[in-house]
């Protein structure tokens, strides 16, 4: 723990580089990105396709490791944690929503929402109760036993958001959460994010290429060619 160095930020990225080997050469995706995120902040990473914004989100969310540079969560360097420790860490502190809902097809909406808490080993009856509360909040009470194939795009994404939040994370990462939705559903999901932030005091990091969505955020980082553009 070296919180003195991280200046009390919830999440801090320092000089992040990420490259992928492509045959004989290397593809540099992130070229020295640094950012600090305070608790309860809503941050948008805006950029076009291939700009590196999704890679940055994955690195911030400990789903991928940077080639160089460090990520600190409450001053703790994530590089020092093993893969298994990172898995537990994500389970307890972070929530994720993706462009595609990534719900497990064989599980009902309720079971999908319960997954993170079950992974943590929480008591099943408590988890089911909490998951039902989330379904109710999302207006999906009558969809509890429905399977992903029986739900609409907007409903799927709301189930995915409920799943991301059942463990009361400190920070919610969303990668193009509205990218796969029509404009009406898109708007609903956008509103939902801010409603949740208000209600839960969540820190939100959203990746999008949608300028209208980005405009709702107090802090927007434009990602271009692996760097923050002005």
């Amino acid at each position, binding site marked *: 723990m070296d919180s003195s160095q991280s200046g009390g930020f919830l999440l801090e990225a320092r000089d992040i580089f990420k490259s992928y080997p492509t045959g004989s050469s290397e593809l540099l995706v992130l070229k020295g990105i640094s950012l600090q995120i305070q608790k309860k902040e809503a941050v948008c990473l805006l950029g076009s396709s291939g700009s590196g914004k999704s890679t940055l989100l994955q690195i911030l969310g400990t789903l991928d490791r940077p080639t160089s540079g460090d990520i600190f969560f409450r001053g703790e360097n994530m590089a020092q944690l093993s893969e298994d420790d990172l898995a*537990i860490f*994500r389970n307890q502190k972070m929530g994720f929503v993706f462009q595609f809902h990534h719900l497990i097809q064989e599980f009902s909406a309720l079971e999908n929402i319960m997954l993170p808490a079950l992974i943590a080993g929480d008591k099943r009856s408590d988890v089911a109760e909490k998951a039902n509360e989330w379904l109710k909040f999302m207006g999906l009470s009558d969809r509890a036993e429905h399977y992903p194939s029986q739900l609409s795009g907007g409903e799927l994404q709301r189930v995915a958001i409920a799943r991301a939040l059942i463990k009361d994370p400190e920070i919610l990462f969303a990668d193009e959460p509205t990218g796969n939705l029509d404009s009406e559903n898109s708007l609903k999901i956008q509103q939902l994010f801010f409603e949740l932030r208000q209600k839960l005091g969540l820190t939100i990091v959203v990746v999008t290429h949608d300028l209208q969505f980005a405009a709702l955020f107090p802090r927007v980082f434009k990602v271009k060619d692996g760097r923050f553009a002005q």
Partner: protein
Amino acid sequence: MSRFKLSAQFKFKVWMAYRLLFSKSFLQRGSAPLAFLGLVLGVAALVAAMAVMSGFEETLKSALTDVTAHVQVVRRGKLVDDWPQFSKKLKTIEPSIESMMRFAYAEAVLANKGQVSGILFQGVDGPEMKNVLRLDNRVRQGTLEIDKDRVLIGMGLAKRFQLNLNDSMYVVVPLSTPFEKSGFRRQAKPFIVSGILDFGKNDWNERLVIGDLKALQDLTEIGNRYTGAFVKLKNRDQSQNVSAQIAQTLGPSFAISDWYDVNRNLFEAVRIERIIIFFVVFVIVVVAAFNISSTLYVFIRQRYSDIAILKTLGLSTSDVRNIFVGQGVLVGIIGTAAGYLLGLLLCAGFMILQNSFSLISGAVYKIDQIEVHLRFIDLLTIGMATTALCFLATLTPAIIGSRLEVVEGLKNG
């Protein structure tokens, strides 16, 4: 707290393995049901093969102990008349003796309606017979009553001589005598068939006659003397120990044998054959396990997106591996259970076939009809070996799947 958490996480993994196993994309379509069926067939074949082998051994064992008790004690040399003292002595040597009786053997000739054939006349104590031998289930016709005129015969003999219940037949024995020119004279006596039995062993059915000891003693003019004693123990499986104990105490003037000694070669052959057959038939299970391995491999390849999201949500690499391995173990357990059931059906089929056609040559195997016998140890070995193999078969695909990078898996979404 930590213990509770462990158990909840364990339950979660079993639940995941179970749900993924019975998912539409796995067991209910594609090659998985075929791979599973292969496993079930392998287990069933093993169960049936083991049941038939054990059944052969058990049938032979039962025949031997039913007709000649667990241990036979025979005095070498001259016959003597000392039963009260000798029986007391045996009892003091071995307290685990449940009951015993004396017997006498005579090689004789059966003559009926112009036919003659060599037989073995076994004379036993009529009242004691039911305590030492177990012939109740072996009666095919008639009763077990023996006395000075009535005897029990094997069903092969009955068939050959066309003897029915209450038919009369002659038993002829040669007696040595210095007064005859030839050195022997013949002694004959008519007996009535009171029971026709299946003695369980082919040669016994063909030539064994069980009668009253007194009748045999009179016929052979040996007075109150006898050949030896049939000993029944409280526990059949102790026969070898007990016979060794008796042999040691009584010394070389007695020949002690138990049911195992008499057919040692056959029992040894069955024991070795059982091990060989186990491994040969187990190859089917091994092939089935390879099928399951490849099926699971394909399944895991199709599941990269799910693995990635589960890891995103906090499942560790080892958790993912354990879930897929758990799936393999579940397949093993369910396959074993289903294999047991199918194996039982195969055994039933074998019994029907055996009753319709003579599958076993009595001349070669000593018995021509066997019961199938499921031994707990066989079932346990089959179950454990199958489950362990399924565990090993799923290990490689499970490890490969668990090592998937989250970012790679999410791309496939």
